[in-house]
């Protein structure tokens, strides 16, 4: 993860200067973290990729400031989607992310598939 550290050093005790290199971590991205947690709980996904594309929409309608998490692209593969229609899969995802969709998320692109989709 980070550079080599002496074993005695605790990673959390980072010097104040470290704040100049701002790397987003889940703690600072509550929406992302909540999405990941809720989708994992609801679908036990084989693959789950959440891409935050909020930065691409700077100044655009729905944009809520530099740190706002508003635009996401979601790719999810789960066995739970087996036998479900596209509408039902997306509805299930909408339901799992109900709170986030009602508050922070302005745009969410969803690609939901089941393992058997790719076969044949």
């Amino acid at each position, binding site marked *: 993860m980070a550079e080599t550290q002496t074993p005695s050093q605790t990673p959390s005790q980072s010097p104040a200067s470290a704040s100049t290199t701002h790397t987003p971590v889940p703690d600072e991205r509550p929406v992302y973290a909540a999405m990941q947690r809720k989708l994992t709980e609801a679908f036990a996904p084989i693959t789950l990729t959440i891409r935050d594309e909020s930065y691409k929409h700077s100044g655009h*309608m729905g944009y809520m400031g530099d740190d706002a998490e508003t635009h996401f692209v979601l790719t999810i593969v789960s066995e739970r989607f087996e036998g479900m229609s*596209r*509408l039902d899969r*997306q*509805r299930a995802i*909408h339901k799992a992310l109900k709170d986030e*969709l*009602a508050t922070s998320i302005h*745009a*969410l*692109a*969803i*690609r939901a598939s089941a393992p058997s989709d790719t076969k044949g």
Partner: protein
Amino acid sequence: MADNPVFDRINDYIKTDDVVVFMKGTPTFPQCGFSAAVVQVLEHLQVPFKGYDVLQDEELRQGIKEFSDWPTIPQLYIKGEFVGGCDIVREMFSSGELKQEFENKGVSVSA
């Protein structure tokens, strides 16, 4: 459900035209990338459709979400039946299913 007055209007819209898109902006000037993508697909298939701009109509904007049980715009209807939003339309277009869907429902497709 049925006591929402906007639902009557929506029912009229989706019965009047074979292909209806509830969108942000108009087919000529979409105001959102997702709405633009759906318009693009329909234009590519050369399917005549009617667009309703939800940005001009707050009652419709909220009403259609409830009506379809779908939280986002755009929304595509074919012959009175909800097909999906931008992701589903794009996926179905890529796989050829959308063209098939139009043909199955008796909507002529040129492309």
